[in-house]
């Protein structure tokens, strides 16, 4: 029998235990990966193509404060601005959803594609949307979830705005990082609100990346000391401002990850030492036969590393399969990054090594006679 065969035979001699050990590694690493992906989603929002040129302008007081619509003329005339659109989060309730099922935004449809060019939508549908003031386009994920088709009429009950809107679906788009949103004419909202003269925020696209820093500064300066001071920031910075709002939750999840990994180490280490203690006598026989200490340690290491790694493959692989099927609708993209997968494998391998330390130590220290006498 080759040495490799010997190790495999040893690892599988108590199939149940090997399965349980690898299984607990798999489950814990699955949990670890899930939590890490969740925390990544929360703290590092996904980045769209074209995001580097997009600038968000909002009221300096907070996002919940609106801006006067008259700012448009000032912003659109600034050098370096390629396109600018009003942008208001409508926050309407659709059907009997007790939570807000998807986000709806009022924008200027003429500017929409110039800003969010990654959205793909058939030309005739786009044309229809641009022409009909009461129409909207909706992302394919939301359309699928609610069974919406082009031509359907939907009613949104305003939670933030004191109006309800009836919209006709002109088109269905896809290709953005989050195909769940609904977009409709800002003018339609303005009409419903009796031309209130306010917008939620401005989104604009800079002509090129070089002008962005200067443009941000100029926009901020243009409205300084007015009744509506603004904060202009890149899309990235805008998204990051949400991150710190999660408060202690990320810390909490990180601590749970630590606990999970620690628990896992405990379980694996205890099973490994159980497995080795059980065959102490056998190992003593091997020693008596002339096997060297490092050979025995290598055997143990290979076995424990193999088990832990097998568990890691199942756990991380399972997570990868589960997440790719898009079952986690709560997050727009639940993506298992190579970094997180790598980290999980690293932990798996590390566990394999740690859990063999104690058994290997006692094996290498034991004298043959002592080992042969062991009963347990």
């Amino acid at each position, binding site marked *: 029998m080759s040495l490799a065969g010997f190790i495999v035979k040893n690892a599988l001699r108590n199939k*149940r*235990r090997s399965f*349980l*050990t690898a*299984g*607990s590694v798999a*489950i*814990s690493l*699955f*949990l670890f990966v899930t939590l890490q992906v969740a925390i990544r989603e929360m703290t590092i929002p996904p980045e769209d193509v074209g995001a580097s040129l997009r600038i968000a302008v909002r*009221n*300096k*007081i*907070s*996002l*919940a*404060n609106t801006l006067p619509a008259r700012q448009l003329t000032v912003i659109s005339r600034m050098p370096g601005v390629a396109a600018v659109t009003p942008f208001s989060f409508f*926050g309407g309730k659709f059907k009997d959803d007790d*939570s807000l099922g998807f986000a709806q935004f009022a924008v200027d449809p003429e500017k929409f594609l110039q800003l969010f060019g990654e959205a793909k939508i058939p030309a005739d549908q786009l044309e229809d949307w641009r022409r009909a003031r009461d129409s909207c386009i909706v992302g394919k994920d939301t359309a699928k979830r609610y069974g919406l088709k082009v031509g359907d009429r939907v009613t949104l*009950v*305003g*939670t*933030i705005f*004191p109006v*309800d809107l009836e919209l006709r679906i002109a088109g269905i788009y896809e290709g953005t990082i989050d195909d769940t949103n609904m977009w409709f004419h800002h003018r339609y909202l303005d009409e419903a609100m009796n031309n209130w003269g306010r917008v939620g925020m401005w989104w604009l696209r800079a002509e090129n990346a070089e002008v962005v820093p200067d443009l941000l500064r100029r926009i901020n300066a243009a409205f*300084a*000391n*007015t*009744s*509506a*001071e603004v904060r202009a920031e890149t899309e990235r910075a805008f998204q990051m*401002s949400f*991150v*710190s*709002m*999660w*408060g*202690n*939750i990320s810390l*909490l999840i990180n601590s*749970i990850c630590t*606990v*999970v990994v*620690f*628990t*896992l180490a*405990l*379980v694996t*280490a*205890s*099973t490994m*030492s*159980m497995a080795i203690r*059980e065959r102490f006598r056998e190992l003593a026989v091997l020693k008596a036969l002339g096997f060297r200490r490092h050979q025995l340690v290598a055997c143990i290491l290979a076995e424990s590393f193999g088990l832990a790694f097998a568990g890691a493959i199942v756990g991380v692989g399972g997570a990868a399969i589960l997440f790719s099927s898009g079952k986690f609708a709560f997050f727009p993209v639940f993506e298992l990054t190579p970094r997180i997968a790598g980290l999980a494998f690293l932990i798996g391998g590390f566990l394999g090594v740690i859990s063999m330390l104690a058994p290997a130590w006692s094996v290498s220290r034991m004298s043959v006679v002592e080992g042969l006498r062991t*009963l*347990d």
Partner: protein
Amino acid sequence: MKLPLTYNIRSVFVRWRATLATVLCTALVVAVYVVIQSLAVGLEKSSGNTGDPRNLLVVRRGATAESTSQITAEQYRIIRYVQGIERDSSGLPLASSDLSLVINVPRAGGGEANAIVRGVSPLGAVLRPQVQLTKGRWFTPGKREVVVSERLAARLAGMQIGESFKTGPVTLSVVGHFNGNRSAFDSEIWMDANEARSIFDRENYSSVLLRPESNPARERIVSQLENDKRFKLRALPEVDYYQEQIGAVKLIKILGSFLATTMSIGAVFAAMNTMYAAVGARTREIGTLRVLGYRRKSILAGFLIEGALLAFFGGVLGCIFSLIFNGWSVGTLSFETFSETVFDFRITPMLIAQGLAFSVVVGLVGSLLPAIRAARLPVISALKAT
């Protein structure tokens, strides 16, 4: 014949090394479960603890939170003089029009948080006896002054008495701290309502809080306001409104159950391993017991009890771990108001009981298969085992 309980207890500790790992593992699983559920409980308690049962809150129909509701000044004038509102000592109706809005403020230690600013009318504090000034003084209207919840102040930068912070073009100075008595008010900054309207460029108020003089009056006011065709309003008991503001609770509970389920599978595996090893090592002992006349049933029960005990010790340890967190204050985003909510980990006896029950279940499930195996061991070969 039943195996004596002391036998089970002592057996658990004979192989203490393997046992210890399983006990610790269960302990950690139970601790994670209890701690996360205690967050949900804390948030629920904080919402449920808010408001005075005598008060009615009037908001725009359809608004999911006070901060998205709007009440015009004219509506307020009408609401204020509705029949049946209790009067204070000087004869004014006990009603307060509030403005609730969210501002960005720097967090202590970097980053930004959304905080709720509540503009209150002079009677606002009278209607909310939960809120007690603990340090400094109340704000003077018109002087750009605010009072801040002391628990929120600890989490944000520039909120100590004497300090000031900028929001938009305005600088507000902190003149006092209040204690909201573990309610949702602990997440708020208070100032004068009309001053807030002018600073933040708001034409309308957000809500009206009022106190009906009696129960019949309360019902009359509710139906009168809700049926008035002139305005789309909703009047509901203040406590009910706050109890609805717990969207994050659902999420925390989902997270908690997901973690508990997944981790408990790991714990069951660990318990199974330990118990199988115990059965393996005690094969001869089991044979002996059988020869002595103990039935298969007793052996089965014995190992189940052992497994349950093992996990129960873990559960106790886990609950003790989790108690460290009890009362710690945390802050996170509220989904309704989109602002920082401050609340505590609340570990209740109910949660402890749940945690312990949970651990026992883990132990029983984990030891079921090993116990069946032990009970099925043939006597003769068991006696011959090494």
